[in-house]
């Protein structure tokens, strides 16, 4: 048994990245997902381009409010050779520009370029989280596919909502339900794999307890989204089921990312492979408080 004698030996929740950092992942993921959806789904509403770009911009604004020296923000571009944050920042202006310009009818083909840039941006975001080696919940390799797939699911949710609610409504709602349902199912699989990976590879006890407490709630929302998307096939005349699925897909994604960035962000804590000899005797067994 290990008894920490003073505070802050066992892993504790980091406080440097709060809801503002989570906002970058939330809006950035949804925005890039929306742009990817606009690029790959035939007949997607043109407004998705600027909408996706606006989401990404919102995410960047969240980060801007978080950094300690906002007027030096342009320094973020200086180390793309190793930093995923620099890479993300370098893609951002091109992504936002192409997303906005895709609204212009003559430049509609820019949506494909915006989609490619959005995919790169989304991947950068996932790797950015993963490169934070001090946070076990983020550095786990399965966090990367989870972040990517949830961004895609959220984007599909926004795309479906805009497609069915904004005139002219897309009538082929049943067709749209397939990719949305597929991405929600993929996210459920990614969450289960992520949770299993953390449990198998070891993580702070408090993180695992929090994950065990929170994951079922979010998975229920995802399951409801999946059922609603599939219900579209037996409700061919309206778009209510797929709209509900889309809202839930976006909401669950945002909830997940806030959970991962803010609530599961327990740090590494401290560890001793051995305890030392004091005076006489031999080394004792090690200690890893909180693991």
């Amino acid at each position, binding site marked *: 048994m290990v008894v920490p*004698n003073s505070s802050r*030996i066992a892993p504790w929740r980091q406080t440097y990245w709060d809801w503002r950092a989570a906002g970058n992942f939330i809006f950035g993921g949804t925005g890039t997902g929306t742009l990817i959806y606009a690029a790959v789904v035939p007949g997607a509403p043109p407004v998705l381009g600027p909408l996706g770009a606006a989401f990404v911009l919102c995410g960047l604004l969240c980060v801007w409010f978080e950094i300690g*020296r906002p007027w030096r923000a342009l320094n973020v571009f*200086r*180390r793309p050779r190793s*930093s995923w944050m620099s890479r993300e920042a370098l893609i951002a202006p091109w992504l936002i520009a192409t997303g906005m310009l895709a609204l212009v009818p003559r430049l509609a083909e820019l949506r494909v370029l915006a989609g490619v840039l959005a995919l790169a941006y989304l991947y950068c975001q996932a790797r950015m989280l993963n490169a934070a*080696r*001090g946070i076990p919940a983020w550095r786990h390799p399965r966090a990367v596919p989870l972040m990517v797939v949830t961004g895609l699911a959220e984007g599909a949710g926004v795309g479906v909502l805009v497609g069915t609610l904004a005139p002219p409504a897309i009538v082929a709602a049943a067709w749209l339900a397939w990719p949305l349902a597929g991405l929600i199912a993929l996210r459920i699989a990614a969450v289960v794999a992520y949770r299993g990976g953390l449990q198998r590879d070891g993580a702070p006890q408090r993180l695992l307890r929090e994950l065990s407490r929170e994951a079922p709630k979010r998975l229920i929302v995802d399951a409801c989204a999946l059922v609603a998307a599939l219900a579209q096939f037996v409700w061919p005349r309206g778009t209510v089921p797929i709209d509900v699925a889309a809202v839930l897909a976006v909401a669950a994604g945002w909830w997940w990312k806030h959970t991962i960035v803010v609530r599961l962000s327990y740090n*590494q804590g401290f560890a001793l492979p051995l305890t030392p000899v004091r005076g006489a005797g031999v080394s004792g067994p090690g200690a890893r408080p909180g693991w």
Partner: protein
Amino acid sequence: MTRYVMVVDLGRCTGCQTCTAACKHANGTPPGVQWRRVLDIETGVFPNVRRTFVPVSCMHCGSPPCLDVCPTGATYQRDDGRVAINYDVCIGCAYCAVACPYQQRFKVQHAQFAYGEQPTAAEERQFDPAKLGVSTKCTFCSDRIDRARETGQVPGIDPDVTPACVNSCIGSALHFGDRDDPKSNVSTLLRENRHFRMHEELGTDPGIYYLTEKDG
């Protein structure tokens, strides 16, 4: 090459926190920010219990996770292995703080003093507005180490060019020197004692070694 490292003899550390106080005195860190602290870890079940005092600070890793993630280039590695921060370039994104597996990065947004809004004379003397809103950490007392190049003194041997925490240690638990010099104090200690480095499995190549017992 030179690689400055610190060696901590865990069997000698008494947990007196003098190094913590010396660090605060030397670097003027604000309340709540401890570039160096001593962990107090109890292990075992009565009657087989142990109490271990573990001084921790920035590990000045050979492969620093904080360096790779820094988007600005503010975090850099010197040719003698020390990891440093350029406060004029740092944007305070705290990416390095979440990348450090030793929890040794700090960020303070507003000036804080020990006794309210008015700084003490020492705090006033050491206050540096460049450190607000940016990431800070232990520098291995870099101003002292840098002085060694001018004076020809040896860090870890001559107190003038040795980190304040090492100078202050009452139990000779802390040692500082060049690991790449086979004749240095730290190389000798590492040769003669069993040792480990914290979280080595994360591939950080940390620059603080902990001695546990005499070899052989």
